[in-house]
């Protein structure tokens, strides 16, 4: 028997395939695809490059002598390879993607078109300033709207993702403390925080302490106040929080932290729930990152790139990172970098990334903001919140909603695994949803709820799409409560059944290696 192109052994040989199996491993439109290393060759290429007129070598005697081991494919093979792979992916273009705290909303294609205009896409970050005035104007314009929408004082555009933005905010807090000779070391982080929050604080040299949540799923103000003191540099809070709730006491929290000499960082991952209706600046926040890919719809791209500009209060603005764009008195734009920083921003904590940040994301985000406008952005928050509450109220009779009694949720609805039959878990529900044609919701997060299921429908889902999703989740929940064993082996219809993650971690295979001949010919 031979290994077919997809690297797994068909149950039948060349003679034929029984019911339910095929010779190729393909299933009609669902196609198996080998690795490029199994189909490409060292002599194959999908590009035609004119040979150089002359051959000479000034490579310092370091000419490559070894083979790299990079297989090539022709253009048709390449297009087919990645197109086939793409069909093994779930995506927002295929259906509802209810990942709580991740905000998978529709990605308008106008944004893609505009980001590809040569005047933005084909411009070098170190090009002479006179030749990039439009790009700088775009950054300046987007910065203006981010400051306006958040009611803050300034914005750092360069952070390259949400977690990079968190780092930016925390570094600004550190710099502000250092400027007053204060060596506070503790950052308080509520239990419900994203894992990036404690990791960021630790990365910047702080120690992290947890703050518990109330029975209602919000930060325990009393516990927070009790912990405040001269060693506390600040708190990192997510608002709306990861239980899907608005932190009612946000202003009181900010006031208490400020009174104790600390700063307030807000994880802005959920800003899409309140954009156009609430300005974080009015809640006493000192720094907040904005995930452009979430609130302003730049595509997630399978896990990046993101973009995480950080808005600052007046107190932290002097410490913001370089470089940034500034409008001069004559209406022209310039970049303030290290060389020009002294005259303006001598207190800046420095540079976070080589160039100006995610220009390609700025283009998309500005396109989104202008497309919606003032009325549309307000509608975005309202529809996101309405859709989440619709899901919450439509399912709380079959799925336990631990904070359903503590008022409306914001843009995401939180359920728990309480009430499932013995031995049935959130994971089983998630995998069964795959068979129903949905990407699962966020599982086991936030940690404050046992077996959490966090559903975020976003504002770009229609009522009909929500009704169908609610029906599917209801059906799966009922089966999990009645102990339907089939759920435990779901998914049954996905390109792959449950994958062995333990094996992958115990015996890591991180790069492709050619099979020894003996194995291949087994």
């Amino acid at each position, binding site marked *: 028997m031979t290994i077919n192109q997809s690297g797994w052994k068909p149950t039948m040989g060349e003679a034929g395939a029984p019911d339910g199996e095929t010779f190729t491993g393909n299933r009609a439109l669902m196609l198996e695809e080998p690795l490029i290393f199994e189909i490409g060759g060292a002599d194959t290429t999908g590009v035609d490059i004119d040979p150089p007129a002359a051959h000479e070598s000034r490579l310092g005697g370091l000419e490559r002598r070894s083979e790299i081991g990079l297989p090539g494919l022709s253009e048709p093979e390449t297009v087919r390879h990645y197109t086939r792979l793409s069909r093994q992916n779930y995506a927002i273009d295929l259906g509802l993607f209810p990942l709580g705290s991740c905000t998978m909303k529709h990605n308008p294609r*106008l944004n893609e*078109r505009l980001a590809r205009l040569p005047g933005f896409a084909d411009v070098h970050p170190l090009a002479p300033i006179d030749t990039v005035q439009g*790009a700088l104007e775009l950054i300046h314009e987007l910065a203006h709207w981010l400051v306006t929408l958040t009611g803050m004082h300034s914005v750092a555009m360069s952070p390259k993702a949400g977690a990079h933005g968190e780092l930016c905010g925390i570094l600004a807090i550190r710099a502000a403390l250092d400027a007053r000779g204060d060596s506070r070391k503790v950052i308080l982080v509520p239990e419900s925080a994203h894992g990036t929050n404690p990791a960021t604080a630790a990365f910047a040299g702080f120690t992290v302490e947890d703050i518990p949540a109330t029975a209602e799923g919000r930060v325990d103000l009393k516990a927070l106040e009790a912990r405040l003191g001269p060693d506390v540099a600040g708190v990192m809070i997510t608002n709306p929080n990861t239980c899907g709730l608005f932190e009612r006491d946000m202003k009181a929290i900010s006031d208490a932290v400020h009174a104790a000499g600390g700063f307030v960082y807000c994880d802005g991952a959920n800003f899409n729930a309140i954009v156009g209706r609430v300005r974080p600046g009015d809640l006493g926040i000192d720094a907040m990152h904005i995930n452009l890919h979430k609130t302003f719809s730049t595509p997630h791209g399978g896990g990046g790139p993101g973009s995480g500009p950080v808005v600052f209060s007046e107190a932290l603005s002097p410490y913001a990172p370089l470089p940034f764009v500034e409008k001069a008195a004559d209406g022209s734009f310039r970049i303030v970098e290290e060389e020009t920083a002294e005259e303006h921003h001598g207190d800046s904590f420095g540079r976070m990334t*080589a160039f100006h940040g995610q220009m390609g994301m700025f283009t998309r985000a500005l396109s989104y903001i202008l497309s919606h406008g003032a009325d549309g952005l307000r509608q975005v928050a309202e529809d996101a919140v309405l859709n989440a509450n619709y899901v919450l109220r439509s399912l709380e009779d079959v799925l336990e909603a631990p904070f359903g009694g503590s008022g409306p949720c914001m843009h995401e609805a939180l359920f728990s695994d309480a009430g499932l039959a013995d031995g049935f878990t959130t994971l089983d529900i998630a995998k069964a949803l795959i068979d129903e044609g949905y990407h699962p919701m966020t599982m086991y997060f936030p940690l404050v709820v046992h077996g959490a299921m966090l559903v975020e429908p976003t504002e770009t889902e229609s009522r009909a799409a929500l009704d169908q999703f609610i029906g599917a989740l209801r059906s799966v929940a009922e089966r999990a409560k009645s102990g339907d064993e089939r759920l435990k082996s779901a998914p049954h219809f996905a390109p792959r059944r449950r994958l062995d993650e333990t*094996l992958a971690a115990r015996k*890591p295979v991180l790069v492709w290696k050619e099979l020894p001949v003996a194995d291949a010919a087994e």
Partner: protein
Amino acid sequence: MRYLPLTDGDRQAMLARVGAASIDELFIDVPEHARLSGPIEGLPNRASEIAVERHLSKLAAKNLAAGDAPFFLGAGAYRHHVPASVDHLIQRGEFLTSYTPYQPEIAQGTLQMLFEFQTQVARLFGCDVANASMYDGSTACWEAIGMARRVTKRGKAILSSGLHPHYVSVCETMAKFTGDMLETAAPELAARSDIESLIDRIDDDTSCVVVQYPDILGRIGDLSALADACHAKKALLVAVVTEPVALGALTSPGEMGADIVVGEGQSIGVGLQFGGPYVGLFACSEKLVRQMPGRLTGETVDAEGKRGFVLTLSTREQHIRREKATSNICTSSVLCALAWTAHMTLLGEKGLRQLAAANHARACSAADRLAKVRGVELVNDSFFNEFTVKLPREARPVVRALADRGILAGVSLGRLFPETKALANGLVVAVTETVTYEDIEALASGLQEVLA
């Protein structure tokens, strides 16, 4: 609004199901003082597709695109021709609009692609393993220093004077907060890089030496002796590659003994994009993998024994380990990694070598031609597709004057190292396959006029 499917009728019916009289009731937990009463100041209401397109197109038109001028800028970002099929593939919705592959059964497309990407990066860099991308080269460079600290339990990193100054700035920013000691210096306008002086400075406190290959002036130094010197003192050698196309022609850092190789992947598949998004490359030896930052994709099997791929070794990551994670990174650059790997697959071994040869040949021609301009001196005795020339006067105003003539001449060292007066006359010139021989002639004659 074209992006919002709910109708007013839907909204009323849904509010009834929810049990709220109005949408305001759903915002009841927002304190009165924090609710915006009116519209957002200054922002007009919704705009049609054509109106938004008009506005952004006007902004784009104010920029001089690289393709519209003889173009010689590099210094960490390079202009290469990207095959049309690459942009087509990354715009497929199943890639563009998918999420981090946390549900592997329905994310095999992204996961397999990342496994292929990891293998290509590891092979190109001459390392055992690579991760599934970082934000960019500069942040990857810092992550490598942090990793060296965790591995060696030492806190002093020696940075080559040939390391991109913006990368140095990023590392300095972070080191202020983590307590790492960094030894840095600005380069000299000399033919050879600083490898010998780096070797002399390694001691028992050194966590790593960070060296760029080719360096910021375009010079190529043999890293073998440096690697041996690092290992003799139990320090790590970190190599930084800002132009991965160079490795189609050059011995890889891993083959010369580098323990960690990081890079900026922008030049393959991604495009200039005024600085981002880019893709950080990160590879290392197998024994260091558990201290590696970022995501990793691994091979495994499913319940039916079929080969499949999953995100793995996640116990290093922030969502599991919180404050004990190897890094706070949660997003990588997956779509850019797809562009990189698709372009690399189109090139293959043969295409990459041809591309590298075409780059080097053009750069040799340009270096010879520019050296003939009166007063211009070639600094490098080795280079790949980027070299430094010394002008008879400050390079910054010369670059500006050439931009006025529609020529994007290169990156002046005065812009990169504003505080080092000795470098002010230096101009870094990058020549890729997108540069024509007419472009080179235009630069040479333009330079001649401006310097006259």
